[in-house]
């Protein structure tokens, strides 16, 4: 069972990674809608999947949350901002789609148009 004693080890690993990364100069910023509507629609799974994807591949990406994004029927929604502040909005996300977005958008810079709000 994990205890606080283990946290020291995790801390050291995390610190090495932080030192390699340029803080404030992330490649992308991922914003997950976590209002009541988002949570009820499955945003937890989506946020979790992004965090695990970013952690697993050590991506230079920051994952954050926001409240209701205003289109509750399209939740779970995710905005991805690039360095220039350009926004891509993905809608009706799930863990499977997140895995694809991590691979295509966050790792290779290719927007997955079929999941974006533009395709509605």
């Amino acid at each position, binding site marked *: 069972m994990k205890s606080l004693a283990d946290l020291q080890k995790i801390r050291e690993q995390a610190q090495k990674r932080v030192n390699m990364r340029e803080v404030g100069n992330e490649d992308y910023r991922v914003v997950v809608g976590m209002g*009541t509507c988002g949570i*009820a629609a499955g945003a937890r799974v989506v946020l979790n999947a992004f965090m695990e994807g970013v952690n697993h591949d050590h991506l230079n990406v920051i994952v954050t949350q926001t409240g209701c994004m205003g289109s509750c029927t399209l939740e779970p929604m995710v905005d991805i901002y690039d360095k220039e502040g350009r926004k891509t909005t993905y809608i009706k996300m799930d863990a499977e789609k997140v895995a694809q977005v991590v691979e295509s958008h966050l790792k290779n810079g290719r927007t997955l148009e079929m999941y974006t709000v533009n395709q509605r």
Partner: protein
Amino acid sequence: MMQDLAMHILDLGQNSIRANAKNIEICLWIDDEKDCITFRLVDDGIGMDEDMQKRVLDPFFSTRTTRKIGLGIPFIKELAELCNGSFLLQSEVGKGTTLEITLQKSCWDTPPLGDVGEAMMMLIQADGTIEYVLDYRHHGEFIMKTTEIKEILGDVNIQEPSILLWLKEYINENIK
């Protein structure tokens, strides 16, 4: 609808974050003998006046501007009523808000606990400057305080994905 209690914790915790809380305490006490689950959330946010306390019970009220309905508190109140429990909302402007519900553990409609570790992880991820306490009691007692975690972490941010994912597992393993 929220499928489990952890989703309510996450949802109601977001209210406290929006109310500029600096400290959020979440108690989850399960008493098999009394057949009772108690869930309490205490924050030191901006609080609500009496009028507001009445209005948040109305599903067609919200402080947000992106939509006109707010379902978080009506959802949990309905759940408490459905599960032979109780609902209590206390708040004072400038002091904070306390929300406490009880549920009959064996009631058909009482939802499962869900992923409590994940809900806590997501609240910390939403705002890492807030100090959280999770007080879980069922047979034994498990208390997680972010102040203690941050002391160990030193200059490493609690919001690092690897730290957050570890915290989730740490909480879930200890409350089993």
